[in-house]
């Protein structure tokens, strides 16, 4: 699907799902989830060549997506459910006992769409590289996508993996950094500046493109561009500028909503800003 209006309408519903999920269990990470809603909708409803709603762990002959910054699980769960991987109704179990929707994504409960546990940061790029190399061995010409946080770039393992992908030319891999500039303790710039991230990845042998992650048209265009650059010898990075809390005015422009839930009143304010486009669960 490439209808921008329709994709935006899905994003709006996903944002409603996110704030409702986080509100219902009074925990979770709404800020980054809201910021990445457009990207994940673009990926799962337009770009990903996958077999939804069918899911199998090995993912042969389809594109794969890994979420490395697992704390933004609400957005992934909503998108997977809305895409048909599991019943939308199940979103109401998020972070509750005996749920398949664990606080951070996990495979133990066999939730369709999840192929690796994540949450302890810095591991997803390595996993994606492994999956990408397995695809090459299998002669499978599909792509592997992975989303990381910008704060997550402070983890050493990310750079081990970045070195590997560049040195070995893992060109069926598209990594994305949610470049929202915020982490738990405050602005990334202040906590531990990443410097020139683009130059750093380029120095590691990556091809880097920047994109506005909250503009559906730009996302589609850049994701298509990235696909056209695949299989040309270099791994790719999308430096995706987003706004933490995007779509809910009082959650934007601050790290305060990185990991806290709205109360009843705040929920009502948030939902008033997000049209119910696909029907609430």
């Amino acid at each position: 699907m490439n209808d921008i209006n329709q994709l935006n309408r899905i994003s709006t519903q996903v944002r409603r799902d996110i704030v409702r999920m986080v509100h219902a269990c009074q925990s979770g990470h709404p800020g980054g989830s809201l910021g990445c809603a457009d990207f994940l909708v673009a990926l799962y409803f337009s770009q990903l060549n996958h077999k939804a709603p069918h899911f199998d762990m090995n993912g042969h002959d389809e594109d794969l997506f890994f979420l490395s910054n697992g704390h933004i699980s609400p957005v992934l769960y909503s998108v997977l459910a809305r895409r048909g991987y599991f019943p939308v109704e199940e979103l109401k179990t998020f972070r509750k006992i005996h749920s398949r929707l664990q606080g951070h994504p996990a495979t133990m409960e066999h939730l369709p769409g999840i192929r690796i546990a994540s949450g302890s940061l810095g591991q997803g790029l390595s996993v994606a590289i492994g999956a990408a190399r397995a695809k090459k061995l299998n002669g499978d010409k599909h792509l592997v996508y992975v989303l990381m946080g910008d704060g997550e770039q402070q983890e050493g393992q990310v750079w081990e993996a970045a070195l590997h992908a560049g040195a070995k030319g893992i060109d069926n891999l598209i990594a994305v950094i949610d470049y929202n500039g915020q982490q738990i303790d405050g602005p990334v710039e202040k906590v531990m500046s990443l410097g020139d991230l683009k130059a750093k990845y380029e120095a590691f042998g990556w091809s880097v493109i920047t994109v506005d992650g909250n503009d559906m048209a730009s996302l589609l265009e850049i994701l298509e561009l990235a696909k056209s650059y695949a299989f040309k010898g270099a791994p790719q990075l999308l430096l995706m500028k987003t706004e933490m809390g995007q779509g809910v005015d009082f959650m934007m422009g601050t790290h305060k909503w990185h990991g806290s839930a709205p109360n009843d009143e705040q929920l009502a304010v948030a939902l008033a800003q997000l049209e119910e486009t696909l029907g609430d669960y």
Partner: protein
Amino acid sequence: MEFKVINYQDTRSGFGAGLAELGRRNPKVVALCADLTGSLKMEVFEKENPDRFFQVGISEAHMIGMAAGMTIGGYIPFTGTFANFSTGRVYDQIRQSVAYSGKNVKICASHAGLTLGEDGATHQILEDIGMMKMLPGMTVIVPCDYNQTKAATMAIADFEGPVYLRFGRPKVANFTPEDQPFIIGKAVLLKEGADVTIFATGHMVWKAVEAIQQLHEKGVNAELINIHTIKPLDEEAVLASAGKTKCVVTAEEHQQNGGLGDSIAQLLSRRMPLPIEMVAVQDVFGQSGTPEQLLAEYGLEHIDIAEAALRAISRK
């Protein structure tokens, strides 16, 4: 008592031979190595299967994550580095990306324990069995000699699930029959006896063989069981033997905390409280020295096992 020494070989060479054989038999087996191909004896696999061998450089954390990723796509990754860098250095990567994710990764660890020798305590990990056995769903295997390590290496490829395979550096007595099948979780009775049971693992199995010969000269009829799979523990075999001899000794090249002795003590205290003596490292770090010097220094010689057996018997 007949323990025929076939030859003296290192267990890591058994791993290398097993991996090479797997390379020929199982196209799904891939190997990853963090700059220790020679030390892990992975060269034959690399030479024969260049497309299925992945040199990752000195980046162990990344290697574990990458191995987890390769299972998605149907491969059976064997990672190779020293035991220290296979466990302590990458514990969280194993915990989240392998164990909790239920990935079919085989973590193969060489140079474990004191017998790594001269490199000293930085490299002599003595806590790895404990760390690995605490992870839900992790199978922990410590074979005793070349032939058993080779057989174990091949057996874990056919087993679905994460495995920690621990082996070592020095040449030791190779006495397991070449055709002996390796059954994960099934203890091997090496000698029947009536007075005391010695449960040993890894390099300490041969030390225990020497100990029971020494005990025999003193009129003690010891039973010897090789616990090559620490987890899942062969509880049936442990209880059957302990129930017969009424006292036990455990022997391992590992800290007492978290090792084989700890597992057996836990089982016996729940099901069959009996005198137990443990031959293991007593909450200290190692140091540089030859393997034999170090085993003597930290009380891991055959004589220490024999003495422990006499103490256990006296407590019956």
